[in-house]
């Protein structure tokens, strides 16, 4: 249950009241204690200020505080015309009438919340090969729960393969594991899985959810981010290379500041490998260049910037701190001790940064690109020649339209817009309207309107287009860049805003870290993001490592030790196993922030290897399995589903990296797209069967199949996906073109593997097992291709025990 369920109504009321005092009165009657009144504590209220006690608990009417906010007497607070809102007054009055219980919940300045306290390594429980099991067993004992038996090997390898690769195991892999009777057989499987590049694709995808990855900016223009994929590949490679998580954090926040090398050759042809690594660190800051791009919708640079900083702070908060900072843009956080000032101070950390294009090739190669530039000149020349033909043809149409109008209209039309008289405007509009009607504009497909060409023009144009194509084949890109963060040359100050309105300008705010979390730190004004990166990645930071360890647990078990992996604040859930979380966190840090070691630690525990069924009696005590007496049965997500279908059918193309793949859509899918020219389909069909992590993520047009299966919204960080069950999913898998096609391939493949018994082959490909006799009998009643379709739809295909 959520923490808030446990809060009694009175505690909530107290929290509201204290929050009002803090937000509305705190700036004068906090540390400043104007008129001697300090409203930060209950004692402060009781002692009061120069006018005596501020409240009489139990008697609202007699309390000075209430009289002042009701504005009934001589003292009217807060100063100004409006005062508090009626419901705020009412909340305070009811709270005082109820005895004014103090809520410790909102009190900035003291880290009394568990997740803000330092990680303390508990002693590992004795008698357990894997200390994780000791911690889990303690909770099971406490709640009188008996653990489930160990899962069988077939289940285990299927679980581990989906978990680390997002794919089903191949029959060969299953056979090898079953044949290996050694005690370390499963450990060997883990080593194999972790060494495969499929691992980074799976776990990188998890991280891409957290950083709200997309290839376009959303809104009307939905601008294409040509280099977003470099950041996506960076993430995948970081997981595959087991980049220490502290370094991963540092690179994404301040890779450019911490490793500022350029790619000079230092006299040699090969770029030294450490410089390439530093280039990766810069690409990592792409995290902050792939968010929603609000620019077209704003009139002022200041607003665009404020929106960008909002996205930056919110994403940083959820991704690295596991906190929802968003509330604090407009007011002090109601539940967590994050103030509006903290929020703007974090904005200030990023305020002297801006997006820029960094070359990803050496100076030497840039020379090469530049020498190839004349090829582009030829392309431009040919484009110009084609456009001249178009313009000539267009002019003929316009002239024909003009011939229908009188001299006054033509004169008006030929007068520059700014110089037209009101009468001329009206006259010119007639001709303009007629030209528009003639349909000389582009249509929705991005194709030009049908302009009548002469046969000579037509022939010449066709010739030029062929030549253009040939020239384009020779024209290489003139530069290759990554879109990264850099330090802005201009100095940008940050100011407090009123309720998040970017136009309002309050006091100036210096860059700083939230005051109640982690160690106090002095921000280096020239390298502000470095200060943030080092503060976050400090081993003693209470949140950074804890949050990531919990994310890993969440992705392994389907539920975190903290069930709200993106919210370690008071609205989040408390940890079910706090000692375990702290022990794992200290292990993680001691092991050099290695994700792969963390995976091994977790997956080698008995808890991970349990069956997903267990003693029935447990259900009455812990039906939702919070204490892990069994493994959770987990449903695979949309990408894993698509990838698994491709893997089973044999069509999966495991090519890694590069530009996003734009897959073909059905006619029906196209009809709802605003600008179809923005969907240039990959022409090589082999590209269409690559892993889902490489598919184009267009903010205004998420892929229908994936959206049906709960792929998250990309406007904000997502720490935990939904998993819904609705009929359109069934229709997608039963009738959809993709499903049909893969079913045909799967049937063919099963027949090729075992012509005599294709049903068993099918079962092995999809479920890592052979069918039972009655299953097989039932299965054989269908043509093989239809059976393959049924297999994709079976619960066993989507649920991993």
């Amino acid at each position: 249950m959520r923490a808030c369920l446990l809060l009694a109504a009175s505690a909530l009321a107290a929290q509201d009241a204290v929050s009002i005092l803090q937000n509305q009165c705190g700036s004068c009657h906090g540390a400043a204690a104007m008129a001697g009144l300090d409203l930060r504590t209950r004692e402060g209220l009781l002692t009061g200020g120069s006018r005596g006690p501020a409240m009489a608990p139990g008697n609202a009417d007699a309390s000075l505080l209430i009289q002042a906010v009701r504005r009934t007497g001589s003292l009217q607070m807060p100063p100004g015309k409006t005062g508090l809102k009626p419901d705020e007054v009412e909340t305070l009055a009811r709270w005082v009438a109820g005895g004014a219980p103090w809520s410790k919940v909102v009190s900035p300045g003291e880290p009394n919340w568990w997740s803000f306290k330092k990680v303390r390594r508990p002693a590992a429980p004795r008698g357990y090969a894997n200390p994780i099991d000791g911690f889990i067993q303690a909770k099971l004992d406490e709640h009188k729960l008996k653990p489930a038996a160990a899962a069988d090997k077939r289940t285990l390898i299927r679980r581990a393969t989906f978990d680390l690769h997002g794919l089903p195991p191949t029959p060969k892999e299953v056979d090898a594991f079953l044949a290996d009777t050694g005690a370390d057989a499963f450990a060997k499987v883990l080593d194999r899985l972790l060494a495969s590049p499929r691992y980074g694709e799976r776990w990188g995808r998890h991280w891409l959810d957290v950083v709200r990855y997309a290839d376009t900016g959303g809104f009307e223009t939905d601008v294409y981010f040509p280099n977003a994929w470099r950041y996506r590949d960076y993430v995948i490679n970081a997981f595959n290379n087991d980049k220490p998580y502290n370094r991963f954090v540092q690179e994404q926040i301040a890779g450019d500041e911490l490793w500022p090398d350029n790619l000079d050759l230092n006299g040699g042809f090969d770029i030294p490998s450490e410089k390439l690594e530093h280039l990766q660190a810069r690409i990592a800051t792409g995290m902050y260049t792939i968010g929603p791009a609000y620019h077209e919708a704003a009139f002022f640079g200041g607003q665009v910037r404020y929106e960008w900083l909002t996205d930056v702070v919110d994403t940083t908060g959820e991704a690295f701190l596991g906190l929802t900072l968003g509330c604090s843009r407009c007011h002090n956080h109601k539940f967590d001790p994050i103030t509006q000032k903290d929020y703007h101070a974090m904005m200030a950390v990023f305020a002297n940064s801006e997006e820029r294009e960094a070359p990803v090739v050496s100076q030497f190669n840039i020379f090469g690109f530049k020498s190839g530039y004349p090829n582009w000149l030829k392309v431009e020349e040919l484009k110009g020649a084609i456009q001249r033909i178009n313009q000539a043809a267009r002019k003929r149409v316009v002239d024909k339209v003009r011939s229908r109008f009188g001299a006054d209209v033509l004169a008006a039309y030929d007068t520059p817009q700014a110089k037209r008289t009101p009468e001329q405007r009206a006259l010119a509009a007639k001709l303009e309207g007629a030209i528009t009607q003639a349909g000389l504009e582009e249509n929705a497909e991005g194709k030009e309107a049908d302009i009548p060409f002469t046969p000579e023009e037509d022939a010449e144009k066709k010739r030029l287009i062929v030549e253009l194509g040939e020239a384009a084949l020779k024209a290489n890109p003139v530069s290759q860049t990554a879109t990264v963060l850099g330090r802005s040359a201009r100095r940008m100050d940050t100011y407090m805003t009123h309720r998040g309105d970017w136009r309002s300008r309050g006091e100036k705010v210096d860059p700083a870290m939230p005051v109640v979390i982690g160690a106090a730190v002095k921000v280096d004004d020239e390298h502000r993001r470095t200060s943030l990166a080092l503060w976050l990645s400090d081993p003693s930071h209470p949140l950074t490592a804890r949050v990531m360890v919990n994310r890993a647990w969440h992705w392994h078990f389907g539920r975190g030790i903290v069930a709200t992996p993106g919210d370690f604040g008071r609205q989040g859930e408390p940890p079910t196993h706090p000692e375990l979380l702290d022990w794992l966190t200290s292990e993680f840090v001691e092991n050099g922030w290695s994700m792969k070691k963390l995976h091994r630690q977790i997956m080698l525990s008995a808890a991970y290897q349990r069956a997903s069924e267990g003693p029935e009696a447990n259900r009455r005590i812990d039906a939702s399995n919070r204490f892990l007496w069994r493994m959770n049965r987990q449903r695979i997500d949309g990408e894993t589903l698509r990838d698994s279908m491709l893997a089973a059918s044999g069509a999966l193309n495991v090519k890694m990296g590069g530009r996003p793949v734009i897959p073909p859509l059905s006619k029906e899918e196209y009809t709802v797209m605003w600008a179809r020219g923005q969907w240039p389909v990959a022409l090589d069909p082999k590209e269409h069967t690559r892993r889902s992590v490489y598919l184009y993520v267009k903010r205004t047009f998420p892929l229908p199949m994936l959206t049906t299966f709960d792929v998250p919204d990309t406007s904000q960080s997502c720490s935990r996906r939904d998993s819904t069950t609705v009929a359109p999913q069934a229709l997608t898998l039963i009738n959809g073109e993709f499903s049909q096609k893969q079913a045909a391939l799967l049937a063919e493949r099963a027949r090729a593997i075992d012509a005599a018994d294709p049903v068993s082959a099918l079962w092995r490909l999809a479920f890592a097992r052979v069918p039972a006799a009655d299953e097989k009998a039932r299965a054989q009643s269908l043509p093989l291709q239809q059976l393959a379709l049924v297999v994709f739809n079976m619960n066993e295909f989507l649920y991993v025990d």
Partner: protein
Amino acid sequence: MSINGNRRDFLCNSALGFGGLAASTILPAASVNPFAAKPKHFESKGKSVIFLFMHGGPSHLDTFDPKPLLSKLHGQPVPPSFGSADFQFTQVDKAPLMATPRVFKKRGQSGIEISDLFENLAAHADDLAVVRSCYHDGFTHVTGQTWMNTGWGRIGRPSVGSWVVYGLGNESENLPAFVVMLDGGIKAGSPAYASGFLPAMYQGTVLRSDGPPILNINRPAEISENQQRHLFETLRHLNEQHREQRAADTELAARMASYELAFKMQMSVPEVADLSKETEVTRKLYGIGEAQTNEFGTQCLMARRLVEKGVRFVQLYSGGRKGAEVGWDGHNECDQNHAFMANKVDRPIAGLLTDLKSRGLLDSTVVLWGGDFGRTPFTDGAAGGGGSRNGRDHNPYGFTVWMAGGGIKGGKVIGTTDDIGMRATQDKVSMHDLHATLLSLLGLEHTKLTFPFQGREFRLTDVGGQNNFYRRLIQG
């Protein structure tokens, strides 16, 4: 504690929560349907919504909000007393005011003034509540569309249809709960009808009037109906065997149930989209079969058929991208543009209201008409000044929507704009106010319809909705 009660209620009532709060037995079939109708917060007449969205932003000044002063000041600059604001293409001090070329008349008993762009709809004036004082701050299409649809000027929040379905479920068991019909691409894209941070099951389902009505609804040509029935049967048996080996997993049961529903939908969706059984009189009423009105008329008639079957929320777009058409975006020759667009929707909308009324459905169906925003009283123009093309720029600071049905006592006007129609002045209606009112018509208290996200209980109406004018709508 209503907030938390709501969450618990949510977990119990949807397939989502089954994993977390698994009961020890398989739940009865009704609870397996995640869209099972849920009780209202309070009694009200409205059950379903038809939201007619005029994509591009229809001018209030040429339709529902007459401004005699504009005619007097035609061609002159905006008097400084009206103040200034930001518009997408025009600077207020550089643009001449433009009178409406339209004729406004008092309509019906109530005498609401409606222009001759909507002659057919005007006959329903006494059913309409015309809200002339809407406002938000999104002066570009996508911000306007998201304000209107999600109550927030950015992409990413759940749409109003998603919230309504989350709050009330669906009366129909075998049709989608939230249906969207488009006549072309829309600028905001799917975020306009997506579920944002609500679970994806609450997103709008796009229904088409030609080709397969919804994605993947048609069985592949090479599989016969009997074959497919056998396929579903086999699947059910195999899934049953799988489930029997696993104790009491309601998620598995829910997924099996979703296939039964999918199978039924394959019949019910094409059936509801098939207008051949409608009489010629009805088809005529909507303008079906006539070039200009056929498309929107078809969609309006489908909308009626959907709410008749209990679909909770239907949204229709007029003015999606098609060829060189720009929808209601009258930057150039606003009047020509609006005459063209109004001609497409006037008869279908009037027909819809007539038809709903004659079938007794208007009382339970809220019809809402609006767009991205309204348009400026001055001409749109090149380089910030008034251009020559008699166009109007986007105006989010004062614009009109109208509502009918769902218990609304029509024939009333709510709110006013200033004398040139640039800004809402009296009885200002924010999008939160509009949404709060819409929810009230459906019996939902907007402060209680919440969902936990990013550390707080989010509402469709954020922290707004104080000017909920529901009471005024249902009183005579």
